[in-house]
C-alpha cells in the first residue's frame, strides 16, 4: 500500500497537513511588514535570506481572527508555482507517514471556509488530520463564502 509523508501543523487546535515535498522549510519569524490595501488574508511580508516572501494567514483563510504579528509566528514555507509563499500557522507538528488507506474524503458535515481548503481527512491515532488544498490555501483573493 502506497504511503505518503505529510508535514503537519495546527491552527485553532485542528491538525492540518500538506504533502512534505511541497514544503520548502518551516521556521519561526517575528518581523512582518504589513501590506496596506492587500486582501485581509495577507499577513505580511518578511525577509527570507534576501528573498521577500508573502505570508498568508491561514487563520483568516479558515474564517478565524488574524494572527497577532507582534511576536514570533510559525511559517510553513511552501514551494509555490513561481515563488515560495508562506502559511502562518499556530503550531508546527511532526512529519508523519500516512497510508493511503487512512484517507477519506472530507466529511459531509464539514462546511464553511474550512471545507474549501480541505481535500480529505486522515484518521490518525486519537485525532484527525485534514489534508490542505495548498493552492486554495494560499489564494488570497478567494473570499470565504
Amino acid at each position, binding site marked *: 500500500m502506497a504511503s505518503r509523508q505529510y508535514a503537519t501543523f495546527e491552527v485553532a487546535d485542528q491538525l492540518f497537513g500538506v504533502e512534505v515535498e511541497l514544503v520548502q522549510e518551516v521556521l519561526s519569524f517575528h*518581523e512582518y511588514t504589513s501590506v496596506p490595501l492587500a486582501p485581509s488574508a495577507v499577513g505580511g511580508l518578511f525577509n527570507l535570506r534576501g528573498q521577500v516572501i508573502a505570508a498568508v494567514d491561514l487563520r483568516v483563510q479558515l474564517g478565524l481572527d488574524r494572527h497577532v504579528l507582534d511576536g514570533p509566528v510559525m511559517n510553513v514555507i511552501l514551494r509555490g508555482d513561481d515563488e515560495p509563499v508562506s502559511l502562518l500557522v499556530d503550531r508546527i507538528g511532526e512529519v508523519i507517514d500516512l497510508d493511503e488507506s487512512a484517507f477519506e474524503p472530507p466529511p459531509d458535515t464539514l462546511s464553511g471556509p474550512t471545507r474549501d481548503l480541505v481535500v480529505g481527512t486522515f484518521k490518525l491515532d486519537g485525532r484527525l488530520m485534514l489534508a490542505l488544498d495548498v493552492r486554495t490555501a494560499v489564494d488570497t483573493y478567494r473570499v470565504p463564502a
Partner: protein
Amino acid sequence: MEELGEIVHEFLMESHENLDQLDRDLVALEQEPGSRELISRIFRTIHTIKGTSGFLAFSRLETLTHAGESLLSRLRDGVQPVTPETITTLLAMLDGVRALLATIEESGAEGDINVEGVIASVHRQMSDATGESDAAAPQLDAPTAVPAPESFESDDAEPRVSLDAPPAPTRELPDDKSGRRPLGEMLIESGAISQSDVTWAVQRQVEGDERKLGTILLEEGKAAPAAVGEALQAQNKRSVADSAIRVDVDLLDTLMNLVGELVLARNQLVRGVAETADPALMRTTQRLNLITSELQEGIMKTRMQPIEHLWSKLPRVVRDLANACGKQVKLVMEGKETELDRSLLEAVKDPLTHLVRNAVDHGVETAAERLAAGKDPEGTLTLRAYHEGGHVTVEVADDGCGINVDRVARTAVERGLLRPEQLTNMDPREIMMLIFQPGFSTAAKVTNVSGRGVGMDVVKTNIERIGGAVEVDSTPGAGTTLRLTIPLTLAIIQALTVECAGERYVVPQVAVHELVYIDGQTTKIEYASGAPVYRLRGKLLPLVRLDRALDLPVGGDQNAYVIVLQADGRRFGMVVDRVLNTEEVVVKALTARFKDIGLYAGATILGDGKVALILDVASLARRSHLAAGPAERHAAASALEAAAKTGPVDRLLIAGVGDRRVAIPLDTVTRLEEFTVDRIERAGMREVVQYRDQILPLARLSHLLGVMTELDEERISVVVYTERGRSVALVVDKIVDIVEDTVTARREVDDDGLLGTAVVQQRVTELLDVRRAILAADPNFYTELPDPMLVEA
C-alpha cells in the same frame, strides 16, 4: 549534429549583429555614395554571410547573398553608381536575409521563404545599369566580372566574384572572422595595392624574408605609407574583438543579484559597526564599503551597453518612413556611446522607436511646407543621449512645426479630458503634457489635428514603469523635443525611506524634488474645501496623505513632512510622519498577488533586514486624482468628505465592454476569472460554464448594453457574483482597473442596464445596474429557494 547546431547558433547570432550594422551602413552609403570604406565593409559582411551559409548548406540564403554581393561588387568597382533605388533594393535583400535567418532560427531550415522576387529585382538593378555603364567598364583595372543575370539561380555555388575581383578567396572560411584580417587582404580591398604585389610579398616571406608584410611592401615601394598605416590601424581596431568574450546574460543577472545582496549586507554591517565604535573594525568596514561600491559599479558596467545598439535600427526606420511620407529627413545622432543597462535598453526600445516615428510622421513637415516656412527642405531629427546626475537622458528633437498648444487644449476639452475653465490655470507645458493622456490618443482624427498622439500614453507608461520620466518641450514653428529620463539600472535605486503610521516605505529618489517640515506654525497644511494643500513659495501644492491613501490610521497635520514629488506630469506633496534617510536599495519584484493594488513598485530589504514596500509614486498621483485639474480635485475632495460622512468611499471595478467603460461596485464582486471559450456550454438558451462544482450561468454585458464586441477571443474575462451559495458570471471584454476612490460626477441616464454615468479617472464611465445584470444571467437568482440541483451544499 549537436556541434553543427552550435555553429548555426553562432552564425545566427553573428549575422543578426551584422545585419543591423548593414542597415546602418547602407543608409549611410546613401548619404555618402562615394565612400569606398562603407562599400567595402558592406561587401565584406555580405560576403561572410554568404560564405558561412554556403558552408552550412543554406542554399537560398547563399543565392540571395550572392546576388547582393554581385550588385555590391559593381558598386564597389564603380561599374554602376549608388542610387536610392540600389539602396532600396539592397535593403530589400537584407530583409530577405533576415526572413531566412528567422526561419532558420525557428525551424533549423530555410523553409519556403520566397526570395526569387528580391533576387530578380537585384538583377534588374544590375541590368538596368549595365547599358549606362558599359562604356566606363573597360577602363577599370578590375574587369567587370558580373555574369549575365539569368545564370545566377541556375548554377554553381562557386563564389564567382572572388575569381576575378578581390578580396582573396581565403575569406570563404567561416573561422577566420574572429581573428585579425590579413594586412594584404585589407590593402587590396582598399585599392592601395594589387593582388600580385601581395602574392609577391608573401612569396618573399616564404622564402625567408623576416620582415613583416607591410614593411616589405613599403620598403619595396609597392604601397604608400599612408595606406599601410591606415590598414594597420584598421587591423588593430578589429582585434579589439579578440579581447572581448561573450557572457551569458543569466550569469550576469546572477552576479547582479549577488552584488545586490552584498550591498545589503554592507548596509547592515555599516549600521552595526557605527554602534560599536571600534576603530579597527570601522576601518575594515570602510574598506569593505569602498570595495563593495566598486564591485557594484563594475558588475553594473558589464551589463551596460551603448545606446548605439538601440539606435542602430533607427536610420532605417527614419529613411523608410520619410520615403513613405514623401519627406526629407536627416537623422543626427549625438552621444551614441552613452551606456545603459541592457534590460533598460530593451524597455526603452519601443517607446523610442515610437517617438522617432512620430517625429518623422507628424513633427517634420514636407519639403514644400518647409520651404514655404523659410526652412531647409530637409528636416533634421536629432537623437541625443547623455548622462546627467545618475540618469541617462535621451532626447528626440525635430525641427518641425512644433506642437500647437491651442489645438492641444481645444482637443483636450473636446475629448472631455478637462473643462475650458481649467485651462486658465495651466501653463503651456502642462497643456502639452496632455498629449500623454490616455484619452488623447484614442481617436485617429486627433492625430491629424494635433500632429501627435497615437500611443503617446503608452510611451509614457512604459518609461514610467522603469522609473523614468517623459517631458515635452516645443516651440511653434521651430520644433519639438521629447526628453526621456531613464535610470541607469533597474536593480539598485537611490531611495528615500519614510515612515508613515509606524511602517517604513521607500520612495524612489528620482521622483523627490524637495522636503518640507511641517511644524504647524510657520509651515502648515491648509484645506481648500476639504482638500489638503501647502503653500510652496506662494503656489498651492496639492497634498496626498500617505496614511489616507493606504487606508491606515490618519495622523495629525503637525510635525509631519511634505515630500514634494513630481510624477505623472504633476507636482504634488505626499504627507508622511517622518523622513528617515536616503540609501541605495535593491529592488525586489513584488509577488504577483499584490499587483492589483497598484500602489507598490516593488519591495526591498532595508539595512536592518526588514522588508519595506517601494511606493509607485505615479500611480499614487493617479489614484489621488491629482492628474485632474484643480477644479476636479475640489470636486473629488468634497465628494470624499461627503463619502466620509456617509460611509466608506466606493471601490469600483472598471471593466471595458466594447469601447465603453463600465463601473461595477467592487463590494458586490466575489471573484474575477478567466475561462477559455471552449469551456462555455449551453443550457437551453443560456451560456454556462462549470465552475467549482457549480453550473455558473453567464451573461454577456455586451448583449445587455447592446455593444458590438469581437467574439473571436480565446478567453473571456468574467466577474463572478456569489450570494447565498449561488453564483453568476458577467462577461466583460477586459478588466481595466480597480479604483478605490470617489465618483466625482454622476448623471442619471435611462439606458437599459445602467444606473447612470460618472467621471472616474477623468473618463466617462457607466455605472452598471448589477441587480439587473445578474437577473439577465439567472432570472431566479434572487428567489428565496435556490435550486438544489445547481448548488452544492
